[in-house]
């Protein structure tokens, strides 16, 4: 039921404001920690816990309101993805604030006074508190139902979920509506987090865990549908429970398989409805004109990259290699989201499949390093053939969600298939061949691979293939009408992007000498998104620029403070508010005067 609370809030916010709020899990975590402190500090005896839960939920509701008014309100008119970037920045900030205030050790909260025992249900001992939570679910659902179906505010919310512009045409101030929705959604997330206090240990990564689960519930239920969230929370809860009993080693995979299955069969979820306008997510992000980068600059940069590494300290050579890997990774995503208008939330699948593909070959077939590296993009491309087949059928946010589901399936497999992937422990000792092991030599290999990849992507973007993709992005109907097979082109783009994403993963795995399931995690999907937006989505060159900036920031900030996420988050917020078109987009606009 906690899942229902958090998912209904997330669904509500998306339904009305169309913001995919990554920070929702952070609000949940924040409330849990607040409740922890308050429950310990309040001098109210047995009532402390309950008062603490209520106060924490309210406080987080207030934080959410403030975030909406101060930050999100400024970017509703900006392309959708910038809102995403902003909420992602909040995730980083809240995560470090929690570490700063409460420390990194796990915390165990008090139990709920009066609900400490356990009851025997069908032969199983179930904590009384869990039963109380289960009972609370329908109560909250009923309260929400009343709010939506019996108040004028509810009518406005439901209307706005269907057609925001029409609501404005009828004289309703969207800004106030959005603030209210955000407040309510954050309150629900806060309540969910605070109520977890007696059940789970508080950790600084609980935000990431819950947000993925909440996404699953929201997507399965139908984005924007609160009844759908309730249904899906129950369905997923049951599947989780049975999964642990029946297939303990595949329990993680199961939920994402369900999500993928739902999206394939009924992309708008169990109780959602198909998008009215049906526009692709890409259509709105391509705000600016392409920015041409002078050829001389590229040549100069290439010369610099060729010449300088032997002069650098080893540490910076490693940083450069990482930048090269991520430049290619981000560029491969750019083909999808920039040129193709398909925003993927699961590009980590390509990166991780490349990394694991190479690592598994080395580990189990003791393949030579170069062969394994060459296999990385092939493994990723093969995966992309399958994933892409399903994904390109969907548009916009559903495409993004299905890619996320597949990436999560890959993550879960890597995590739980212990015998082959080593699970959490990852695969270690995946080093380059001896003659390439020196930093500078490995650097040149990475430069060659990444440079070649970027060159191919640049050519592909300008070739008829890229032009066709653009046409399909901007005028899908017209493109179909003139006989272009839009889907086939998008599928091919997905595979090509997967190929180069995999190559990036291959470069990365030999740089680190190891691979962990984290290389398939949501964070790895979000990073290239951030990089592309940071650099500017209008041109391919934005991807490497963004990658370099992101990784340099990461490196520099980490030297001065362990709270690099906080700094990065603040910088991202500033970028979204000040340079909403990315670095290149802003420079380009300046240049044109």
């Amino acid at each position, binding site marked *: 039921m906690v899942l229902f609370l958090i998912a209904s809030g997330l669904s509500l916010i998306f339904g009305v404001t169309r913001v995919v709020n990554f920070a929702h899990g952070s609000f949940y975590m924040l409330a849990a920690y607040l409740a922890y402190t308050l429950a310990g500090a309040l001098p109210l005896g047995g009532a402390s816990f309950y008062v603490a839960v209520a106060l924490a939920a309210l406080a987080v509701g207030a934080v959410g309101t403030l975030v909406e008014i101060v930050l999100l309100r400024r970017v509703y008119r900006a392309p959708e993805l910038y809102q995403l970037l902003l909420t992602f920045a909040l995730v980083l900030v809240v995560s470090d604030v929690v570490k700063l205030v409460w420390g990194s050790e796990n915390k165990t909260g008090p139990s709920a006074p009066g609900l400490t025992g356990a009851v025997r249900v069908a032969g199983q001992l179930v904590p009384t508190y869990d039963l109380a939570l289960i009972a609370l679910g329908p109560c909250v659902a009923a309260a929400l139902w009343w709010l939506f179906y019996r108040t*004028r505010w509810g*009518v*406005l919310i*439901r*209307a706005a979920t*269907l*057609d925001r*512009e*029409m*609501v*404005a*045409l*009828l*004289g*309703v*101030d*969207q800004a106030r509506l959005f603030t209210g929705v955000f407040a309510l959604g954050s309150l629900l997330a806060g309540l969910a987090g605070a109520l977890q206090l007696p059940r789970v240990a508080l950790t600084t990564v609980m935000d990431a865990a819950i947000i993925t689960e909440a996404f699953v519930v929201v997507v399965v239920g139908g984005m924007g549908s609160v009844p759908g969230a309730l249904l899906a929370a129950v369905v997923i809860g049951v599947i989780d429970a049975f999964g642990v009993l029946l297939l303990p080693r595949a329990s993680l995979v199961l939920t994402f398989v369900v999500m993928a299955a739902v999206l394939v069969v009924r992309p708008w979820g169990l109780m959602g*409805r198909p998008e009215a306008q049906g526009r692709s997510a890409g259509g709105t992000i391509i705000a600016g004109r392409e920015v041409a980068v002078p050829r001389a600059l590229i040549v100069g940069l290439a010369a610099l990259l060729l010449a300088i590494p032997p002069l650098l300290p080893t540490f910076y050579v490693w940083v450069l290699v990482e930048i090269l890997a991520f430049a290619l990774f981000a560029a491969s995503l750019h083909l999808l989201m920039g040129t193709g208008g398909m925003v993927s939330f699961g590009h980590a699948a390509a990166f991780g499949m490349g990394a694991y593909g190479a690592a598994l070959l080395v580990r189990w077939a003791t393949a030579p390093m170069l062969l394994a590296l060459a296999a990385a993009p092939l493994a990723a491309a093969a995966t992309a053939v399958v994933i892409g087949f399903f994904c390109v059928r969907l548009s916009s946010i559903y495409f993004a969600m299905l890619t996320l589901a597949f990436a999560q399936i890959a993550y879960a497999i890597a995590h739980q298939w212990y015998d082959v992937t080593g699970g959490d422990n990852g695969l270690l000792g995946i080093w380059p061949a001896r003659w390439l092991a020196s930093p500078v030599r490995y650097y040149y290999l990475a430069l060659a691979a990444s440079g070649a990849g970027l060159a191919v992507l640049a050519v592909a973007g300008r070739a008829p293939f890229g032009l066709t993709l653009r046409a399909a992005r901007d005028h899908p109907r017209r493109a179909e009408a003139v006989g272009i097979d839009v889907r086939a082109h998008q599928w091919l783009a997905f595979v090509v992007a997967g190929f180069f994403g995999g190559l990036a993963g291959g470069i990365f795995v030999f740089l680190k000498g190891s691979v962990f399931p984290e290389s398939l995690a949501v964070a790895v999907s979000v990073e290239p998104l951030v990089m592309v937006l940071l650099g500017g989505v209008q041109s391919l060159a934005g991807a490497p620029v963004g990658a370099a900036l992101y990784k340099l920031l990461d490196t520099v900030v980490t030297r001065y403070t362990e709270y690099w996420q906080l700094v990065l988050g603040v910088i991202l917020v500033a970028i979204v508010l000040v340079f909403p078109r990315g670095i290149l987009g802003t420079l380009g606009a300046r240049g044109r005067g």
Partner: protein
Amino acid sequence: MLELADVHAVYGPSHVLHGVSLRVGDGEVVSLLGRNGAGKSTTLKAIVGVVEVTAGDIRFEGRSLRGVPTHRVARLGIGLVPEDRRIFADLTVLDNLAVGARPDSGWTLPRVFDLFPKLAELARRRGGSLSGGEQQMLTIARTLMTGPRVLLLDEPSEGLAPVVVQAFAGNVAALKRQGVAILMAEQNLKFARRLADRAYVIEKGEIRFEGTMAALDADVSLRRAYLSV
């Protein structure tokens, strides 16, 4: 009361209106005629601020509407009834009407039902389950609930059966008698002729004719050039 002066409007990179000027007086019914893609809808959308206006001015009762957010324009007394009707499909007829309702608008449920008796019978039905003609009534009724002094109707007769158009023209005439000014985008000259006092003809984002309906009727070559009749 509503006046557009040399308005230019764009959709992203494409420039659609090239200096549109027109005027709607108190209680007047004015039609805006033109072919598909001439810029009729864009003109109406420019007034309420849902398309970007890059030059020119739009004044309503003396104050400029440029840069005024859409919901404010609506509250000032301009109600746009969009061409695709945009009924909230999942909401009941009553809830659809409730979205725009305002206590000070002068329009109440009984008054709306008086004008469209059919809607009273349908009050609890889902908006999405209504027929085209019923949806057309609902979309106008919904906008009336906001208490507009100028109603912008975008192709109200489009897609309606001739009988329904007949009845519907009666409703619009009743509104006119109640003193609501109307700017109506139309391709259906017959329908416009029946209701409008004056007409503008728009083509490729520019006004090509301005005058009374009678003057338009007299000018056959004009009608041939810019209207499909």
